[in-house]
């Protein structure tokens, strides 16, 4: 986004109405959690997983297996800080000679922030630095897996029936009793009286159909619920031993009430996002694979294609007096770009804020291409563009200084001018299919942007 404001703290705005392929968009970095407002036309996608503390990249298959958690790093269950592994030496008997003892290293986890240690919850010290600690298992896992298998079976039956219904064709020659017409159907489809109505619209076993069925014991309901222990009403609470709601919800499977049951969890991974255009599915931004690198593999950002407009100097602006403002236009691409500044027309819907009249140079301006080596190349011949000194104040490499005439129309307040900037855009991305006819590799597209500049207050 171009900025044009005295003082340099972002006041110009650049809205663009050109249509081009692909759409350049301005994109915040993939780590920035800007949320979904970022661009409705660009779809974010998960690119790569990494652990925020050990900065290790994790392939997505492994991430799926590990439930998006790092294998090495742990989070403190009390304060969510990253746990560090500490080592102590404990005396341990030698395997050969039980009488003698030698110092062995024992490792435990500790939080540097809230002083929690793995010994607080009764986790034994491990003899290996990493890989020794396991998260506890959910005791209901087996039962839930059995339930899933059972319902899978019912679902399979429903699918078979549904597919069969689609394929069954009406047979006119069959006796009425065998046809579906009156809903009686075949023996298999008819429901026996007294049998349960099809539950969950079909998810129930019909008797005698399948020999190899997985049976499940429906859960047993109990008459009595355990009451609170007698001393619950009278015993004082130590709040440090009671977990907070936040701490409990970090462990959905267990949600322990006592702090002594709060086991640490592996650290949750973060992702890098890539952006894709909604319409043409073109990749707009793709970050590097390496978690420590903040560069991009693909970065199609507007800043790289649209000439930058900056304010260089503003004279004293007085009501109804025409003064000259010096702007600079900088060309971000490597080939010559032609820029035309146009005045906004009457009734332009984008032109809502301008409080001054502006006269822009009538002719087309030429901007030289950006040459990275230009500042080092002293022998380079300056390109001769035959600039009109009334319009062009100076020219340096890919930058040009341009005069615009501004007449404030309001006595007080900020002076804001708007105009249109039209420039050419060449899509230099390699086409999928190299065109064999002619040498027109990429077509030139003209884009027009609405530019608004805030020039500061009117002086009395």
């Amino acid at each position: 986004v171009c900025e044009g404001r005295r003082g340099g703290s972002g006041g110009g705005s650049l809205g663009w109405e050109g249509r081009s392929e692909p759409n350049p968009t301005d994109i915040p970095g993939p780590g920035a959690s800007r949320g979904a407002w970022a661009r409705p036309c660009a779809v974010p996608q998960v690119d790569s997983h990494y652990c925020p503390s050990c900065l290790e990249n994790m392939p997505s298959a492994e991430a799926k297996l590990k439930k998006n958690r790092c294998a090495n790093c742990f989070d403190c269950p009390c304060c969510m800080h990253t746990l560090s592994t500490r080592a102590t030496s404990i005396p341990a008997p030698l395997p050969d000679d039980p009488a003698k003892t030698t110092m062995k290293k024992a490792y435990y986890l500790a939080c540097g922030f809230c002083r929690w240690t793995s010994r607080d919850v009764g986790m034994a010290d491990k003899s290996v630095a990493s890989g020794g600690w396991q998260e506890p298992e959910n005791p209901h896992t087996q039962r839930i897996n059995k339930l899933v298998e059972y319902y899978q079976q019912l679902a399979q039956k429903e699918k078979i029936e549904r597919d069969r219904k689609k394929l069954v064709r009406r047979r006119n020659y069959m006796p009425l009793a065998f046809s579906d017409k009156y809903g009686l159907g075949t023996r298999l489809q008819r429901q026996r009286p007294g049998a349960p109505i099809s539950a969950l619209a079909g998810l129930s076993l019909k008797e005698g159909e399948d020999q190899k069925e997985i049976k499940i014991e429906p859960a047993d309901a109990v008459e009595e619920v355990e009451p609170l222990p007698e001393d619950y009403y009278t015993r004082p609470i130590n709040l440090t031993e009671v977990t907070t709601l936040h701490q409990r919800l970090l462990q959905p499977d267990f949600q322990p009430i006592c702090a002594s049951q709060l086991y640490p969890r592996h650290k949750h991974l973060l992702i890098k996002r890539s952006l894709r255009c909604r319409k043409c599915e073109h990749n707009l931004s793709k970050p590097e694979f390496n978690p420590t690198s903040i560069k991009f593999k693909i970065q199609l950002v507007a800043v790289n294609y649209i000439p930058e407009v900056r304010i260089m100097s503003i004279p004293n602006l007085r009501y109804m007096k025409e003064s000259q403002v010096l702007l600079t236009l900088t060309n971000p691409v490597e080939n010559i770009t032609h820029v035309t500044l146009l005045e906004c027309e009457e009734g332009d819907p984008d032109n809502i804020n301008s409080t001054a009249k502006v006269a822009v140079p009538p002719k087309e301006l030429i901007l030289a291409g950006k040459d990275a080596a230009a500042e080092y190349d002293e022998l380079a011949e300056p390109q001769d563009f035959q600039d009109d000194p009334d319009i062009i104040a100076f020219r340096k490499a890919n930058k040009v200084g341009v005069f615009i005439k501004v007449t404030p129309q309001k006595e007080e307040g900020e002076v804001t001018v708007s105009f249109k900037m039209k420039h050419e855009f060449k899509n230099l991305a390699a086409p999928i299919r190299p065109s064999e006819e002619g040498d027109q590799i990429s077509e030139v597209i003209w884009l027009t942007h609405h530019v608004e500049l805030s020039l500061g207050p009117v002086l009395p």
Partner: protein
Amino acid sequence: MPLYEGLGSGGEKTAVVIDLGEAFTKCGFAGETGPRCIIPSEIKKPDVPKPIKVVQYNINTEELYSYLKEFIHMLYFRHLLVNPRDRRVVIIESVLCPSHFRDTLTRVLFKHFEVPSVLFAPSHLMSLLTLGINSAMVLDCGYKESLVLPIYEGIPILSCWGSLPLGGKAIHKELEYQLLEQCTVDTGLAKGQSLPSVMGSVPEDIVEDIKVRTCFVSDLQRGLKIQAAKFNIDGSAERPPPPPDVDYPLDGEKILHVVGPIRDSVVEILFEQDNEETSVATLILDSLIQCPIDTRKQLAENLVVIGGTAMLPGFLHRLMAEIRYLVEKPKYKEALATKTFRIHTPPAKPNCVAWLGGAIFGALQDILGSRSVSKEYYSQTGRIPDWCCLNNPPLEMMFDVGKAPPPLMKRAFSTEK
């Protein structure tokens, strides 16, 4: 993890299961034993100091759309870490969810995130899947309200629903009121200052934490005595000895003294019968009376209680005692023949049971597709089926989308020509 997960059975990726509650959202993958995350249903905007609740029913569509968009974006890219486009979605919802909210949520999912299909699953029905039973009386004690819905042979008996605004929200309101009225604060400068002089109101997350850590539900006898003392009809009732006070640190400097009586009396609002003689316990009995006679015994012996508020210590025991106590009262004694009540223990914490049911259903890849609303259906019709709209053709008809809905239905229920 089951062996078939992700690899076999056609290679379809596991579905995403989201339970959007008004206070908390439970989110995870189908086929797993618990949600990946339980987070407050809020988003944080940079210029607004307080987080904004996502589940609001009275705001305009534009705002709701942007809140839901941002929240679901965070769910996918911060917690689930998967692409929305690849996986089907199961949304656990309450049957009382307003259609406007549902429609906006569907639009966000299909138009913005382009998910392949969405299934709206009622929470009460899903909780039965975690037990392997077909009939139960399900009570969901959540944040905004407690909602009861009986299910018989897998079909919700919609006409017998019942709800009361007695949930976490009501408890928080009562607790804040009691705290401001009765409690004192020790600040760094002075001791024993009244709470209103230090802070005008107590932030809800602090109230919630106080509730979770210090409050509990007394048993029936004790609870009735507390209520009698509160309403003090005779003037002679004395409340039972209160539990000990708790010193609750508000921050590094201030300590709030939570007086003992608050800890056991605030929760009584769930069981106090107000002028209409309704409480969380009567919800079950009133619903049972409305149910068909043949179903009552089975429903009464299969009670299921889900929801975060049901996790208060002592809640379930008190609920059963209240039901047995109330069933002897004249109002119910004649009407209900069945006197035995049994309650289930699902294989998950009460706040995750509905989610788990959705996760079990979401793992049924054979039928999940046919039961869900697909992106194509939505783009062609622009709406999702709702149980309260009779002019929607059933999903089975949508296999051949070109077919017109059966003329019989149209004539009977709609005024369209």
